[in-house]
């Protein structure tokens, strides 16, 4: 298994859609073959269509607010006394998280396919909120599928979705979290694929959805590459790019432009959700050695039992609370280009406390997992080493959880 140079990772799959010969693919019911094929053809045309690209760039700049800031976390670096810690503050994007890139692109695709309805899944509520924003912006009718447990714990984002005119469909099956929301959304699409476009909220699902999402979020690393050069004059010798990984859309977007750099120069570290300390219900298929399986139309490492039933997962962060992961991250893991680890709920919370104590930054619980890893390793690194964390979401949505778990929450 090998990564090819100078070809975007999203395009390094075989004819049947597998990365590294075994990750991804399209395990879908026959009914979805046509809509998936239609979308695949449309996307391959659109991504080479100048006027579509112009439109995308226009909205990325004027609607999403690209580029998002790249800042040094002086106080935190000083406090830890090791590597320089920087943040790519993607949460400054319109809506407060990276999910806006994928949502905007899907809304644009939906429009150009002549469909008036768009549906999507959401865990933390950001994918749903952004899709509802984009739908409103482009005049589409929007339905969001969300686990009943997540609706309760991510209320601020639900309020935003409703305000944008989207209908939230609560999902009561299974663990009532993201995994069930994705299933229900796919089932809805099976029944309505003739009039409705589906947006998968991360780099997961049938091959084409991995590609569209990765293509959209790659904006993050495109900006970052320019910003690093501006800041340092060139690409420094030792960089670690740390990103949380649930489905893996922000991590893919944060890394994609740097895949061809040697690992010794630019290292990728993905941080999964370890769940509550000592919990067996982690959502960390890559770092805790889950087996290859098929979930939501794609083969990837999946938390599951011997019979192939998908495990329930548990994490304080709804956005990472997912038993599967992007096939591209499986590919990056097995080719050893990226390294994956996990942080527990408690570690993410203390990271949140430390970051907000020292910096004017309010990372949501998802990137707090990434900060936990940065904090863990920074002390043992030299001052000329650079850690960049993707602060991919804003903690406003976590208000209720943080109030409950951290007394001095502001």
């Amino acid at each position: 298994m090998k990564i090819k140079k100078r070809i975007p990772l999203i395009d390094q799959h075989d004819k049947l859609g597998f990365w590294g010969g075994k990750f991804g693919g399209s395990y879908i019911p026959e009914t979805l073959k046509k809509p998936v094929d239609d979308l695949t053809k449309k996307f391959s045309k659109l991504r080479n269509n100048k006027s579509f690209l112009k439109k995308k760039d226009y909205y990325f700049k004027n609607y999403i607010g690209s580029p998002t800031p790249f800042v040094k976390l002086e106080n935190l670096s000083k406090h830890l006394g090791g590597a320089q810690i920087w943040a790519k503050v993607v949460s400054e994007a319109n809506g407060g998280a990276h999910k806006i890139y994928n949502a905007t692109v899907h809304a644009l695709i939906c429009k150009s396919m002549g469909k008036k309805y768009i549906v999507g899944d959401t865990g933390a509520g950001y994918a749903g909120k952004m899709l509802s924003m984009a739908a409103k912006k482009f005049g589409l009718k929007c339905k969001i599928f969300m686990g009943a447990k997540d609706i309760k714990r991510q209320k601020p984002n639900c309020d935003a979705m409703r305000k944008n005119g989207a209908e939230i469909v609560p999902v009561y099956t299974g663990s009532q979290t993201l995994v069930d929301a994705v299933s229900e959304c796919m089932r809805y699409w099976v029944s309505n694929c003739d009039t409705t476009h589906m947006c998968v909220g991360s780099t997961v699902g049938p091959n084409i959805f991995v590609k569209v999402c990765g293509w959209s979020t790659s904006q993050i690393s495109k900006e970052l590459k320019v910003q690093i050069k501006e800041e340092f004059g060139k690409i420094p010798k030792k960089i670690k790019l740390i990103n949380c990984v649930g489905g893996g859309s922000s991590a893919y977007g944060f890394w994609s432009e740097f895949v061809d750099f040697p690992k010794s120069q630019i290292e990728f570290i993905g941080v999964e959700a370890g769940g509550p300390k000592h919990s067996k219900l982690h959502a960390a298929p890559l770092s805790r050695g889950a087996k290859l399986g098929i979930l939501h139309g794609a083969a990837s490492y999946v938390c599951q039992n011997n019979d192939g039933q998908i495990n329930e997962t548990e994490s304080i962060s709804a956005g990472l609370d997912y038993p599967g992961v992007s096939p591209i991250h499986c590919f990056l893991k097995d080719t050893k280009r990226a390294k994956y680890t996990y942080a527990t709920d408690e570690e993410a919370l203390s990271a949140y406390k430390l970051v907000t104590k020292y910096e004017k930054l309010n990372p949501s619980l998802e990137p707090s997992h990434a900060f936990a890893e940065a904090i863990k390793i920074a002390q043992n690194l030299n001052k000329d080493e650079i850690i960049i964390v993707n602060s991919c979401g804003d903690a406003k949505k976590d208000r209720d959880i943080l109030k409950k778990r951290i007394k001095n929450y502001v």
Partner: protein
Amino acid sequence: MFNSISEAFKKAKKENRPALLTYTVAGDSTKKKSLEILNSISKNVDICELGFPHNTPIADGGQIQTSAYRAIKNGIKIRDIFQIVKKFKKNKYSKPLILMGYYNMIYQYGENKFLNDCKKSKVDGLIVVDLPWPENKNFAKKCKKNSISFIQLLSPTTSKARLKKIIKDSHNMIYYISMLSTTGGKLKVSPKKILFNYNEIKKISPKKNCVIGFGITEKTIDKLKKADGLVVGSAICKEITRSLKNRQNPVINVSKMVTKLKNKIL
């Protein structure tokens, strides 16, 4: 090869009626009950479909999901399912049996081991919901080698060019999904339209047995009588749920329902 499934269709044709296929979930509501249900409906059914329940089904509606979750909660494992089949097949009134489910369960069990156990327990056919053509080519070939019929699915969204290719690679039975829906949806397309599409398939290959499924209930079944076979699934799962709720024996109620279904297509 594949005799029993073909024979079942032949027999129905001789009686001038479509074959009746039922779908129940293995282990619903318990291992014992699901076997009892199979045994009790067998005399009125031509082919039994038995679902191996998955907890992340992407093509099943509420009724089958409820049955599947109930079976999983009661501890059903794949090896139990083979036991159910084995016992059912010992019944002298048993009928051809098709296992139906999602690919991950086969994948985790191991394709070869799965097919081997299918053969040992006398499974006659397989439907894998999320393994479409052409992805299923290799697996379908393996099935054929083991004398197990791999049943290809067709849907209203399948293009004509694709229909031809899939039918060419299909074995003795194909399954036409009546409408854009998960299982158990309300029939939102007219029977006339469904039969029109069905006839398009039959034109391509008149000899292959084609069944229609999704949205078929006591109310709709007689309008589709012209098909080679008709599958009733969610309506039966719903009856099991209703029986349990009313503290009645699902075996008796399902059996009654299947008798009624059979009478409608005679």
